Structures are given as C-alpha cells and as structure tokens.
C-alpha cells in the first residue's frame, strides 16, 4: 500500500485520468449515449399526440414540456453513473485510493454530465423547434439546460451512490431524487418562459448558477458517503 501511495499520481492527474477513462468507456458504447437523446425525441412526440397538434397551445407549454422531458431523461440515466464500476469492483478500488474521493467523484459526475445533460442541451434547439418554442427563447433554453442538467447530474449522483448496491434499485432512485429536482425545474422553465415573453432570463439563470455552485460544493460529500455505505454494505 505504501508503495502505491509513494508512486500514486497527483490528484489532478488522477482525476483527469478518471475523466478520460469514463469518456472512453462511454464512447465505446455509443448506443448508450444515444438512448437518452432518443428518449427525449420520442417523449417530445408524445406531447402533441396527447395534447393535440395545435401550434399555439404547444408553444404555450413548450418551455415546461422541454424541461420536464430533460428532467425525465436525467432521471433515467442517473442510475448508470456508478453501476458498472460497482459491479466489476473498480469502485472499491477507487474508495481505497489515496486521492481525495471528493474530486474523484466530481470527475465521475463531470464525465456523466458530458455524455448526458450536455449533449441534451446542445441538441435541444431541434426539439424546441418541433414544439414551436419561439426562436428568441432557444438561447435561454440552452443556457438553462446547461446549468440545470449539471445540477441534476450532481443530485442524481447522490441518489445513484445511495442505491448502487441495491439489487432491486429500479424505481427507488427516482423516488429519492425527484423532490430535489423540483427547484431546478421551477427555475429552469421560468427562465425559458421569461425569454418567450421577451423579459430577461438572466436572474433565473443566475439562480440556477448558484444552485450549481451549491451542488458542486456539497453534493460530492453526500455522494462519497453514499458510495462508502453502498460498497461496505
């Protein structure tokens, strides 16, 4: 163990390595990156099917619809962030590593966000057009999704860490983290709605930003604690 500590890479290099590892692993399975985006597309189609194709009605609800779908995709992908590493034992190794768990966890979540929420935010204009979101709001949509999905990934990571060891996890993670998703939804869709009516969305984006700062500061502690509990169980 002491040999490993002496030759252990510095924290920054370790975390960058983790990040690269997670991204490489994800890139080897492009279907898994595509799935949430496909889900987003299909659920976008559900709303006109359910509510009727009238363009003005859809446009009225578009900010909320887009945000709710983004939230649901985040929910579905939140379970995967630690599961495969838990199952093959790499998570245990991570917990034994000398590098601080706070930062390693952040690396995991960053990688997860890059392949889920970040991509979602980038392709959201396509779906925004499909449900008639006015063009002025698309910028606010992307900004709010970028900030908001990062918070969702961090909060989702807490739920994932607490449930990764459970066999019949399933719906449990959704029950646990949906209440924490709600403030993000409230401010995210408010930002887009404000942009639709032409008012500045900056205040709501700032609130989302402050939620993100809080989440970056605090969530890794909870995630690390959850991982230790799950691995020791």
């Amino acid at each position: 163990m002491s040999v490993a500590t002496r030759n252990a890479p510095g924290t920054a290099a370790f975390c960058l390595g983790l990040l690269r590892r997670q991204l490489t692993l994800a890139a080897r399975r492009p279907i898994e990156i595509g799935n949430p985006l496909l889900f987003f597309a299909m659920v976008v189609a559900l709303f006109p099917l359910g509510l009727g194709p009238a363009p003005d009605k859809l446009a009225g609800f578009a900010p909320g619809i887009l945000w709710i779908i983004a939230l649901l995709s985040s929910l579905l992908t939140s379970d995967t962030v630690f599961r495969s590493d838990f199952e093959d034992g790499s998570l245990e190794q991570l917990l034994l590593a000398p590098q601080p768990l706070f930062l390693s966890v952040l690396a995991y979540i960053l990688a997860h966000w890059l392949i889920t929420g970040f991509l979602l935010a980038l392709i959201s204009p396509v779906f925004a057009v499909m449900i008639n979101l006015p063009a002025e709001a698309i910028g606010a949509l992307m900004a709010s999704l970028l900030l908001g999905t990062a918070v969702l990934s961090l909060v989702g990571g807490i739920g994932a860490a607490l449930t990764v060891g459970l066999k019949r996890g399933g719906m449990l993670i959704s029950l646990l983290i949906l209440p924490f998703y709600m403030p993000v939804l409230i401010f995210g869709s408010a930002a887009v709605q404000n942009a639709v009516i032409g008012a500045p969305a900056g205040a709501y984006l700032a609130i989302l930003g402050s939620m993100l700062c809080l989440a970056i500061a605090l969530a890794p502690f909870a995630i690390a604690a959850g991982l230790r509990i799950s691995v020791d169980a």
Partner: protein
Amino acid sequence: MWSFFHKLGSPPWLYRIAGSILRWLLPITLLMLCVGLVWGLLFTAPDFRQGNSYRIIYIHVPAAVVALAGYYVMAIAGGVSLIWKMKMADVAMRACAPVGAALTFIALVTGAIWGKPTWGTWWVWDARITSMLILLFLYLGVVALYEAYDNKEAASKACAVLTLVGTVNIPIIYKSVDWWYSLHQPASIKFTGESSIDPSMLYPLLLMIAAFYALFTCCLLMNMRADILQREARTNWVRKLALEYRA
C-alpha cells in the same frame, strides 16, 4: 453530563427511560388532544368568512407544523448517528419517519378537505400545500430507502445521508415553490387570509399544536422501544423481559 450521553447509547437504559416517560406523557397527550378537539370543535365561534369549516385548522395546522419539525428531528438524529456513530440515534431517526409521514398525510388530506368549501376545489397548487406534498415524498423516500437495504446498519447510514441532503434542500424547495406560486397566481388568496387571529381561536390552536408535539414524542418513543426490542432480541435482558411479559 457525558455519562448521560453514554447511558443514552445503552439500549436497556433507553428502553426503560422511554417507558417511564411514556407512562405519564401518553395520558397527558391524550388529555390535551381531547380537550383541544372538543374546544375547537364545539366551543369556539365560527369564522366570519369561512363559517364552520375553518375548524379544520385545529388539526391541519398542528399536523403540518409537527410534520415539518419532525423532519428536522429526524435529520438531527441522523446527523448524530453519522457523526458520533450512536446506534440509538439511528433508532430515533428511523422511528421518526413513519410518524412524520402520517402527520404529513393528515395535513394534506385535511388541507384538501378544507379547500373544498373555502375555494371550491379539492386540490389547489398553492405554495404551502405543494411544499407539504414534497415533504411527504421526502419522508416516503426515507422509508423506501430503509426497506430496500438488506443490511440494516447500512440502511440506517444511507437514510441518515438522505435525510441530511433533504434538510439542505428543504429551504431551497420551500423558497422555490413559494416564488413559483407567486409567479403563477397574480391575485393570490393567502392561505390563512386573516392576518390577526382572534385569541379565542388562538388558544385552542396552540393547545392542539402542543398536543401534536407531545403525540409525536409519544409515537417516537414507542417506535423506538419496539425497534430496540427487535434489534436486541437475542440479548439476555430482552429475553428476560419476554418471559415476564403479561399481555
């Protein structure tokens, strides 16, 4: 002083102390509840605007207040069990969850029933009711997480972490919902519209709030005793208790 905390960590001592507290607290609680209920139901004058349906306040507000306070009790117990690793603290935390959930449920149902004659609909998404609903989800999440784990020690730790995360989030959720409601309801009807409440209505309300706090404590202690028995079923003092037990 420290020996007190040390004794708190001992199951048989806690079991006995809880039992002796319950012996006087339970009758007092029931008395307060009866007096408060009868007072509120029959001996106060009806509200000027809402008529007799305002009497639901005597169960709705206490339930809501104690439900929220109970979450913080649960969080403190969880924090103590995580930081100082006291086993009895996580027994306390687990005992809070179902009681808190039941009280939140009461608050929601009575709130809905109150809403029908007052606003005409069974459910209205105002800030307080929505926050209560989210609180119910938080409580049920803790219960669900505990049940999902096979290893009950890990389950307690996980619930403690979840409860602490919830505690940080409760002000955020409450403020967000508050703000959201004010955004979407321009001419809002304040939930308790009257800014000053008549003393004749206030006193029974205060009594009921105190009664509900006492009730929460009773249920907490009783749940803790049952949990202690379950945990320590293999020890001598419990086996002796079982032999001496007369239904």
